[in-house]
């Protein structure tokens, strides 16, 4: 018997799809985010019945999203990420317009820093979970986040 039964997968979509897409936009840019989103949720759905711990489903999804973002960058030979389009009039998913410029800047950070910033601010993940998602020590995660933020401040003035 599982300690916590797995909820219907639909619940993961209802609760976390927006977070996953926001994090992926930060990590790979608007262009690649949709594909990575598909890959993330398909991988999650395939693995879901075998998942043994239902306590941190959000962290689990974001970990998969992060791996898919890395795959995406590898497939592109670590080419620079195309930054987001200039802001349109419409505001999507409730993200304020001025965030577009910020996310574009996040999109141009080196992969580790970008992921750390996206996980921390796009998805509000605590440091421990960022480390787990990135597969590094909390200290290294903190450093990536710090470096990323320093660059952003410089870039956005």
């Amino acid at each position, binding site marked *: 018997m599982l300690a916590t039964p797995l909820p*219907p997968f*639909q619940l993961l979509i209802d609760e976390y799809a927006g977070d996953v897409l926001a994090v992926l936009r930060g990590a790979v840019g608007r262009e690649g985010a949709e594909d990575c989103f598909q890959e993330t949720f398909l991988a999650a759905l395939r693995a879901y*019945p075998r998942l043994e711990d239902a306590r941190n489903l959000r962290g689990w999804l974001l970990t998969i999203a992060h791996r898919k973002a890395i795959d995406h960058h590898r497939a592109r030979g670590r080419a620079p990420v195309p930054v987001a389009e200039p802001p349109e009039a419409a505001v999507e998913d409730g993200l304020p317009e001025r965030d577009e410029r910020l996310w574009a800047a996040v999109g141009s950070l080196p992969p580790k820093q970008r992921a750390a910033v996206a996980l921390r601010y796009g998805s509000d993940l605590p440091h421990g979970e960022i480390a787990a998602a990135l597969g590094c020590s909390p200290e290294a995660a903190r450093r990536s986040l710090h470096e990323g933020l320093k660059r952003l401040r410089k870039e956005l003035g």
Partner: protein
Amino acid sequence: MKTATNTAIDRFKARAAEEGLLDVAYATADSPFGPLLLAQSRRGLVRVGLPNQDPDELLGELAERVSPRVLEAPAELDEARRELDLYFEGKLDRFDLPLDWSLSNGFRLRVLRAIARIPYGQTRSYTEMARKAGNERAVRAAGTACGSNPIPLVVPCHRVLRTGGALGGYGGGLPMKRGLLELEGVLDE
């Protein structure tokens, strides 16, 4: 307007269906008695939730007992919805839907299979159902089997009454049972 997230979700679900990952697809359907929950496994219709039942609870149960790959996918339930619509309009007297019986077993399953063969517009007693299932004396158990019917309406447990004609019970409430029997012309409106 559709958000980018909704578009991404729709595409994901289409791909999940293509890859055969929809272990349980569900949708809601309107009925004269209120919203129904329809859930379908790869084998067929596995669960019909009546208006007075909590959909979240039913979906949680499906996740535990059938598969946690439970996704809202209305298109998958189009045929079931179509037949139910016709039934409620009085234009369909026999459902032609594949059924998944896996939520029931033993004596209960035998009772439910017997119920599935009761024709439209006719009724049987709990005693008859107990006999058909192989144990005439298990009348109370036959009643419990009706009450636990995971696929009501399509498996027409509303057609089972007490000996003598009293309505007995119904998972969807007695007004609904009465309404269904009126629809089928068994009871006068």
